[in-house]
């Protein structure tokens, strides 16, 4: 047992750091750029050209065929340097691997380069108003008419939709089949007539999601990934694409560190918030939990390296880390005491409103990407082997 990365990996780390220090200096400017979208595309292309995108993909697909540990090293370094996620991140983690595994050669050649270079931005059309936790109950219809699917329906909680060039979506192609066996995985050009995007505002005030409406939208038959009616299995395999979560640990660690520094500055009478025994206990607890998550990540990574199937263990990390993120965000808010509710741009606001944003962001973590309730089911059924609760799925 050891926690060491190989000398080659450490060398790789050094290379990344050097490259980031040379190239990521003006990254903070992306959000402030005149055309932030273009700036984000440019950044991903720059990363790609330097060989830091599609790390574990085959070379034939434009990837680097790098090792798993190199990928971990890269995620850790990006998190450490607070580099924002790549603009095409969703396509890189879900669509790309799907096409590599299930796509036709033609699909791979057509779409993978654009995903890697961010020349084409992708959004994901899975959730629907009536199909959230119970995703396979989706009702968006796709009817094959000659060489085209005609799609009608509505998707929701779609990130990036207003700026996306393409959408990968699930649609029901056989309404009579059992619900998991009548779904197809389609690729849709967002400029196709009949596609409408309506941005949604979230509880925290941000515009991260959209609704996407499909009205008689025509998609070429060639844009179906895998078999017709075989889309659920394909989607499921990438939904379960497991990661060690080690880059998430770095982010949580940064959150806690900001909390510690804030507490040390916040005056409570003639002491600071960091002097209060109750607050010290809380910070210590979060330190413990972050270490727990980190070492859980090392175990997951070791499993992956040894080729052991990760199974449902990613649910453990997801459930635990979303809860931890929420606890840290809530405590940060509560540490601010009487000034906690002061809104941004007001006199006396704490941390320029960042506490509020962090709080709302954290609340979303136990909903998006599988609710905590679903994570509990998964752990109970797939790890503990408990009988399924009576439900139709």
């Amino acid at each position, binding site marked *: 047992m050891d926690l060491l990365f190989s000398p080659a990996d450490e060398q790789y780390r050094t290379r990344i750091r050097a490259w980031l220090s040379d190239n990521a200096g003006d990254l903070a400017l992306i959000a402030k750029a005149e055309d932030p979208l273009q700036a984000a595309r440019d950044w991903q292309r720059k990363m790609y050209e330097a060989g830091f995108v599609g790390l574990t993909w085959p070379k034939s697909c434009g990837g680097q065929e790098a090792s798993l540990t190199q990928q971990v090293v890269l995620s850790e370094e990006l998190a450490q340097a607070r580099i924002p996620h790549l603009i095409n991140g969703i396509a890189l983690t879900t669509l790309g691997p799907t096409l590599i595994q299930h796509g036709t050669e033609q699909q791979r050649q057509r779409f993978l380069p654009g995903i890697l270079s961010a020349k084409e931005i992708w959004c994901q059309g899975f959730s629907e108003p009536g199909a959230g936790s119970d995703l396979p109950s989706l009702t968006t219809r796709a009817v094959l008419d000659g060489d085209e699917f005609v799609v009608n329906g509505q998707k929701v909680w779609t990130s990036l939709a207003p700026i996306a060039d393409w959408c990968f979506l699930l649609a029901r192609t056989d309404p009579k089949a059992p619900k998991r066996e009548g779904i197809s995985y389609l690729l849709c050009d967002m400029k196709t007539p009949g596609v409408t995007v309506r941005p949604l505002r979230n*509880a925290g005030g941000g515009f991260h999601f959209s609704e996407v409406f499909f009205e008689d939208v025509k998609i070429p038959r060639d844009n179906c990934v895998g078999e017709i009616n075989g889309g659920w299995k394909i989607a499921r395999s990438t939904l379960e694409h497991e990661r060690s979560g080690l880059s998430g640990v770095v982010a949580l660690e940064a959150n806690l560190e900001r909390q510690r520094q804030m507490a040390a500055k916040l005056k*409570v009478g003639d002491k600071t918030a960091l002097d209060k025994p109750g607050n010290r206990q809380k910070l210590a607890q979060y330190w413990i939990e972050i270490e727990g998550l980190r070492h859980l990540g090392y175990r997951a990574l070791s499993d992956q390296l040894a080729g052991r199937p990760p199974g449902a263990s990613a649910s453990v990390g997801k459930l635990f880390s979303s809860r931890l993120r929420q606890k840290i965000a809530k405590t940060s808010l*509560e540490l601010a005491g009487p000034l906690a509710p002061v809104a941004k741009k007001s*006199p006396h606001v704490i941390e320029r409103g960042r506490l509020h944003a962090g709080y709302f962001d954290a609340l979303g973590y136990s909903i998006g990407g599988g609710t905590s*309730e679903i994570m509990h089911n998964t752990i109970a059924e797939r790890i503990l082997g408990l009988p399924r609760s009576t*439900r139709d799925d």
Partner: protein
Amino acid sequence: MDFELSAEQVAMRDVARNMLGERWHPDKMREAIDKPPATIPTDLWAELSQMGWLGVNCDEILGGGGQDILTAAILVEEAGRALLPSTFSTNLASAWAIENSANQAHRDGLLTELVLGNKRVTLAIEENHGSWGPDTIELNATGNDRDDTLHLSGTKLLVPDGSTADLFLVAARHDENLCLVAVDADAQGVTVNAMKRLDGADIVELELNDVAVPASALLQWGGDGESLLREVYSVFTVLIAADLLGSAEVTLQMTSDYAKERVQFGQPIGSFQAVSHRLADILVQVEIGRSLLYGACLALTEQREERHALVAAAKSWLNETAIDATEAGVQLHGGIGYSWELDVHLHLRRARSNAATLGDSDFHRDQIANYYCDRPG
């Protein structure tokens, strides 16, 4: 032994629920998150006065409704449910302070103006010391017996509804004693800097720069300003607790209703114990919170020895209840709970804001510990 609402109180609650539901729309709080803070417009304020609610717990001789603090709390609970700006509870607490002051001039003149809706009054208590309450107050009111004038200098923070207030009741130290001093919003040396709360509510920073007021501006209780201030603080606190109860209860109701309708996996999500048991826990919290609130109101009215501890208990408990209920509301609504359109996040914002107003749960538990733990024997 009769520890439930009277028929009259129930009727008043129902009237308030209907009236506020018709005359105030939560969208105004939603909009205030981006725009300037929300305030109650003049016409609605006049209506609240006409309903007799602005003076609901003032003496009938002074134009009030002659009801107890519990009745005021019931109305504030409805204001919480309806997402009405806090101006209502602020003025109820201010009215209580003025009525219970020994200062006859204020009682006769000022209180009538407040009850009629002609003047809005607020309380300026908290300063910037990282904690809450009378014990943290440093702002000084100088002046001595021979001098007929008091001079105030200093800064108050988080003053609720300050943008529309005509008068501030400012907590201060005078001759080392705590007191409340009435300061006109347009007095020389008064500066009001708008702030805003997380929930879009109006709060202000109040700067007093050598503001001169007559000695008669001092509010006291049988010559004792500190007792009055502590009592007012408890009355205001219990009203905010009522507001929190309103948020908790309406969110529980919204979420239960949603859980009955929303179908996933072929059945309403409310049939899953992950949902139903969490909601049952919230119901327990709400029922305990309501019980504590009633108990605290009654103790204040009856001036019982444990009243401040019971107020602290109600506020501490309801802080957590409202946060738990509204956070559960977001989670159990799923994606829709996280959307801007649903009112759940407005209640979450209000709950989080009120929970940090007039003392968080730790603060109030500290008060109770001082009361309970250190008694002899």
